[in-house]
């Protein structure tokens, strides 16, 4: 099997696995979107993700500031 197919299958299976596993937890199954029901602090998760995204964008623009060479 080609490497690309194997990577695709692993990625797809991981996505299925993660989604099913997360819904196995009481949080996934009981989640109604009511704030505080799971006491996991989702807002802080969103905050962390925001910091991650902006750090990523910052790092990328810094990288782009450097001279680039064309692929040979």
């Amino acid at each position, binding site marked *: 099997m080609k490497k690309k197919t194997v990577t695709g299958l692993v990625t797809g299976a991981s996505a299925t696995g993660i989604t099913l596993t997360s819904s196995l937890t009481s949080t996934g199954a009981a989640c109604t*979107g009511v704030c505080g029901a799971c006491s996991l602090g989702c807002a802080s998760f969103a905050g962390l993700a925001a910091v991650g995204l902006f750090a990523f964008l910052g790092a990328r623009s810094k990288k782009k500031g450097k001279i680039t060479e064309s*692929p040979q």
Partner: protein
Amino acid sequence: MWKGKKVSKIQKKSRMSLLKRFIWYVVGFALFFAPFALFNRGLAFLLDEKRSGDIHATCFRMPLVDMLTGKGIVILSVTGISLILLLVSAFLLGPFFCGKLCAAGAFTEYLSRLLPDKWKVDWSKYVNPVPLRYGFFAAFIIGPIIGLSLSCSYCGYSFFEKFTNGGIWGDFGVLGSTAIITAFLWLVVFGLFTKGGRGYCNFMCPVGAAQNIVHAVGAKLPFTMKIKYDRKKCVSCNACVKDCPMRALTQGEDKKIQHSNHNCITCQQCVAVCPTKSITYGFGKGGWQQEEVKPVQEPKPVEKGA
């Protein structure tokens, strides 16, 4: 010389196409999404079915699970008819609902177009969206069959309805912790800051994934409508790749364009911007290269003065 002229012409064409598509999405919003949901309400009225007029009438999760678990499905119901229309249109025309009618997907795309490209991330460069979206779709189907409940709170559809209902009636519904995450992921990370603005469509949406599975099969047949390509006419200007909201187009090492039916929503934005009419939408063969050509490598950054 023609480059300068064509660029502004391409931008004009792109804007015209966006405007035309916008009109379709407004129609789609009125037909399928609360508070209007005219299609769902009209059909429920005709079939004498008592159900609320919102996007859940057209969500196929439960009918699909009912089918797979042997409970069967009532064809002459709002969900039954919607499911058939959704899949048949995807087979014959491509993901018509996504490309023309789904206001939820369009909302983040148009929002993201307001930001300059340098602020956006092209996630498809880091991970192939196709296996991910099909993986989520598999879990979406398998979950309820094995007795697991997947939370609808993470659905971009639902959130879009809460958002628009809130804007129109002041009724945002339950805006809890999961809504905060959904809003953040759907609207900000995978909307505003994503190239194309359709991260939710590309990575997670089960309705889109189901249509693309059907479209990928349908596109192999000559009597179905699909995005087609004429290699000889293509001047490799890359305008189509840049404007594709689903990142379904890439440029190969030979500078020619590659296309994926597994995430193309047949929105025809690429058709509109192509200056040489190399990309069209119609019947017949797709014309996309069968043998694999490596996508163009990103230029490697090197330190200044190196």
